[in-house]
């Protein structure tokens, strides 16, 4: 596996794997393509190499919680939106607050979300988040009614392009603070 021709082929395979994948691919998955005949470290080196090539294009190769994936750079979205005309709906404040609460306070029940927001939860907000596969039920809480416990999914992390919940912006502290105009 040392000569140049082989190296070119390995790189071609890795690029094809990354560009055709429907979900993030881990280095270990890519190694399967070569029946583990190619070192993990070499695969990682080539991925790094590809990410540098993409930096000169409109693409970026990013690392997610469970592998690597290629996406368009944010600044190219304006062009893409002109082609597809129908813009994906920007989520309402209500949906965004709900996913934020779930992200930061998970695992959490619907009742607890309502408690924080001070309003009854619109069931279509929760449904939208389920449909997007951003949240899932991970159990039930041992209280009367055994309400479901909600948590965010890996897809939520992937779609936001982050590896773990720890990468979310830190929750602000509001000690002694004025709420400023």
């Amino acid at each position, binding site marked *: 596996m040392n000569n140049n021709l082989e190296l070119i082929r390995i790189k071609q395979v890795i690029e094809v794997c990354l560009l055709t994948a429907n979900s993030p691919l881990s280095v270990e998955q890519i190694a399967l393509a070569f029946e583990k005949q190619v070192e993990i470290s070499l695969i990682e080196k080539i991925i790094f190499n590809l990410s540098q090539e993409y930096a000169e294009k409109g693409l970026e190769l990013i690392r997610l919680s469970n592998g690597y994936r290629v996406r368009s750079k944010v600044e190219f979205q304006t062009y893409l939106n002109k082609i597809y005309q129908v813009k994906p709906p920007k989520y309402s404040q209500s949906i965004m607050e709900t996913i*934020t609460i779930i992200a*930061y306070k998970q695992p959490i029940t619907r009742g607890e979300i309502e408690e924080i927001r001070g309003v009854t939860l619109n069931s279509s907000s929760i449904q939208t988040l389920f449909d997007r596969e951003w949240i899932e039920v991970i159990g039930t809480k041992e209280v009367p009614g055994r309400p479901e416990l909600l948590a965010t999914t890996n897809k939520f992390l992937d*779609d936001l392009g982050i590896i773990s919940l720890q990468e979310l912006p830190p*929750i602000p502290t509001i000690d002694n603070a004025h709420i400023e105009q």
Partner: protein
Amino acid sequence: MQAIRVNKQSLTDLPKDLYISPEALQIFLEMFEGPLDLLLYLIRKQNLDILTIPIAKITDQYILYINAMATINIDLAAEYLSMAATLLAIKSRLMLPHPPKLEEEYLEETNLDPRNELINKLIEYEKIKQATAALSNIPTEGYHYRWSNIEVNSNLNIPPNIKPENLKDIWLKILLHSITQNTKHRIKRQELSIREYMTNILRKLSGKDKITFISIFDQNLGVTHIIVSFIAILELTKEGLIQLSMSKNDIILVAN
């Protein structure tokens, strides 16, 4: 520290004396995610300290808005009315007379301050609102970018793992079955190569009315090819799959 965000600044003032259309009030109400949101707005609007809300002032304002909504029959969510009740309860508790020397201690003891629970809720909700704003700024799939999505060239759909020898084994089984179950059935001896030539000839004929005899033969493939082709044509004629007819200088094959 970010300011509380309110969507539409233009609509934030609610004139007290003028008539306001129900539509305008409805839109005003829809700007808020609930009573906590409305309260935060009122606090922000007057630049008050969230930790020491002058509860009487805020309660009066809140009730003013709620009443305005109620008088023109805007459906108010139960939460808004419930918050009004809470605010009034806090206000009345604060107004209760206390023994004078105990009053300061009473209010400094946060556990006893009736505002405490509400303030905590407001702070918690304000944090979530700020976190929501930060989260909304993270690039999101479909809205800020798209994944690469190229197609896999797929003849891909991989074929069953069958080898020519498998076909022979299966044929043997069929044959055996045929001999034991159906002795009257005749299995004709036939050269495979001839069957293949028959198929190729029919394929050449498909979509055409006729082809010439000569066009069947590939001169480069030698004598055996010509002989087998010839036998195949005879076999096709015998089986009634094609008809032969003569023209001036060639034989014409006609599809049946």
